[in-house]
């Protein structure tokens, strides 16, 4: 057994047993972050904070929510909104945060793409981030089922239908999965079994997976370090030594706490002004009116569309016939995962300094926005054509990426 001296203070007592001073050093005081960064580097913190808001508001909602097809709608729209003190506030925070978290995820993701923060040792950061995106999507979808409104029901119907697979006449029916949709739903149509399991996924399994993935995402940052605005590679030991000696101006790094954190908290403040403005004055975008009609399996809404953050991939599915559409959809889900391997360039630099990739990046952003808008519009006339072109452009962009980036190495 280790030898323990009598401690003279609580801090010392804890330190002997938990090495708190060392832990604090490792994760905060001497966790070195490059100095050459802008506010986009605070998006990780903004995301962590928004996730915390979602968890906390979710816990409060959970105390009143009833996962039953008969009472779910009213437990959300009546009990929480009329009878529970500040229930409306928790609900609006939860609803708005669930939508805004995706805006920040996309900004975070595109920041990573723009600055090339997904390659040369940072692959696991990227891949764990993409896994987080997928699980967040599942979390958002399962949460959307819970109020059991018209859009919950019909979006649940449409999305689970995707698991039917390809038509039975393709490849001898090997890619068709009879019964899979019913197995997922626990019924022929969304009903009580469906609601209960999505409730479980939303409040238990998926949040656990998200928390584990966040830990992995943070851990993956340790060795390759955070990227910087110029993609510059430098010696962290050297820079840290310089900083600790007091040459803070010359050093290329800052400690996470308090220097990096002070900027994070400021950016967080600006974000919170925006966030609470939405919560109090502009929440309809996150709480679709259609979902304020109770679920009715006999009445299909005139327009069924997913929440805005799924629209781009929905639009890669929609303009094609069933089977090619599924292939395109699957491709869209995988495309961003493959980014570190499709990008053949060794250069880590902002896209604007990277030859053809510069055009690739901005075309990709514009295409994603076009896809998103077309995904919401009714699939008629010109919108359908624009959507089809944008979907083809998306696929072409990722197929072409290796050739777009290959020549950079020669320059």
């Amino acid at each position, binding site marked *: 057994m280790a030898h323990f001296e009598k401690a003279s203070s609580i801090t010392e007592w804890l330190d002997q047993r938990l090495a708190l001073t060392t832990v604090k050093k490792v994760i905060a005081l001497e966790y070195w972050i490059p*100095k050459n960064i*802008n*506010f*986009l580097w605070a998006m990780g913190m903004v995301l962590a904070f928004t996730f915390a808001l979602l968890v906390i508001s979710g816990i409060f909602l959970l105390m009143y929510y009833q996962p039953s097809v008969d009472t779910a709608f*009213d437990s959300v*729209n*009546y009990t929480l*909104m*009329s009878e529970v003190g500040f229930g*409306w*506030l928790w609900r*609006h925070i939860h609803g708005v945060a669930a939508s805004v978290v995706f*805006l920040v995820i996309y*900004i975070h993701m595109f920041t990573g793409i723009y600055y090339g923060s997904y390659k040369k040792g940072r692959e696991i950061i990227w891949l764990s981030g993409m896994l987080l995106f997928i699980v967040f999507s599942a979390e958002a979808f399962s949460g959307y089922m819970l109020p059991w409104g018209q859009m919950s029901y019909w979006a649940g119907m449409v999305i689970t239908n995707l698991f039917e697979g390809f038509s039975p006449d393709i490849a001898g029916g090997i890619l068709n999965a009879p019964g899979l949709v019913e197995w997922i739903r626990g019924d022929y149509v969304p009903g009580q079994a469906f609601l209960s399991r999505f409730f479980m996924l939303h409040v238990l399994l998926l949040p656990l997976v998200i928390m584990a993935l966040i830990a992995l995402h943070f851990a993956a940052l340790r060795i390759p370090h955070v990227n910087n605005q110029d993609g510059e590679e430098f010696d962290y030991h050297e820079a840290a030594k310089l900083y600790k000696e007091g040459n*803070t*101006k010359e050093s290329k790094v*800052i400690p996470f706490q*308090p*220097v990096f954190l*002070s*900027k994070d*908290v*400021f950016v*967080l*403040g*600006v974000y*919170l*002004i925006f966030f*609470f*403005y939405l*919560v*109090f*004055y502009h929440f309809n*975008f996150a*709480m679709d*009116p*259609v979902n*304020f*009609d109770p679920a009715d399996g006999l009445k299909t809404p*005139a*327009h069924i569309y997913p929440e*805005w953050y799924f*629209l781009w991939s929905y639009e890669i599915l929609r303009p094609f016939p069933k089977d090619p559409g599924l292939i395109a959809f699957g491709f869209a889900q995988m495309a961003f995962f493959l980014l570190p391997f499709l990008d053949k360039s060794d250069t880590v630099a902002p896209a604007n300094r990277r030859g053809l990739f510069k055009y690739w990046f901005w075309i990709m*952003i514009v295409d994603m*926005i076009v896809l*998103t*808008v077309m995904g*919401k*519009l*009714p699939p008629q006339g010109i*919108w359908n054509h624009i959507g089809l072109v944008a979907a083809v452009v998306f696929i072409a962009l990722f197929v072409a990426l290796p050739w777009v980036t290959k020549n950079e190495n020669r320059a």
Partner: protein
Amino acid sequence: MKNELKILGVVVVFTAILYWGVEPFAHTQMHKHVDGEHFAYSDLNESTKKGNVENGKTLVMGAGACTGCHGIQAVAHKAPMDAATAVSAYGVNPPDLSTAGGLYSEKFLVNLIENPAHALKVEHKFDVAKGKMHPMSAFYGAGGDKAQEIADMVAFLKSIAPKEISPKNAYMDACGRCHANRYGKLDQLGQTPTFKSETDTLKHKVAVLEYQDKLKAYMGKLPPDLSIIIRARSEHFLETFVENPQSQLEGTSMPRVGLSTQGFEKVKAYLTQTGDPSKTAREKIGPWVLLFTLVFTILAYLWKKSMWKDH
């Protein structure tokens, strides 16, 4: 700093375009646009006559006139039938007329008395030529100048209407006979009572269900519960739909309600009470929360500045 603002500008511009595309723009493409006329009912005829209240009273209360079917609590006249019997007899329960003069547009009332199916815009359902009569019969005149007589009746209804009608009463009189509002604890028979015994609770429930069955037969389907309709439809939709249901939903069996602008405001106030009860609290707390985040941000900025001074 300049660089950061430039980056922020790019983020904001792309976000704004995205928002515009999936919200305001998409909604203009998804929903049919209907211009409202603020309850002017320009398709109906204007009455030029000035009504006489006393004469109107005689006409309204007279034998075989309005009170043969309608109750008027304001003058202590009970409806000849209770709601359940009335709905069996007419398909729909004739409203009590006490508040009619205060809720509905005068022009609408004049036209309603003269030709109900036309004023209510349900001629596609009730066509005399096909033997389908509207349950409210048109007023054929009491022997004098018909237009004058109608003006008199409307003048009487206006004279008995209470000066102040509560939002809840406005809702119950204008919508409540067909639409339940469970968040407001209203069913088609009125305020849902609470009983001590389960038997009585169930008896009431059965009475409501039986009423709803009759209503279903009359309307084609059970009119939806309006508890939270204020959040399920846009304000513009509700206004234009109430003003003229056919404009938004062609062929619907919902009649034109005929509310005046003030009458509609009352109904809307009640729908907001039941469907968006946090509105007042939101508007009260919102500014303080925003002020808090603003002060927080200013302090955070000062902290950031002091931290980055030597870096």
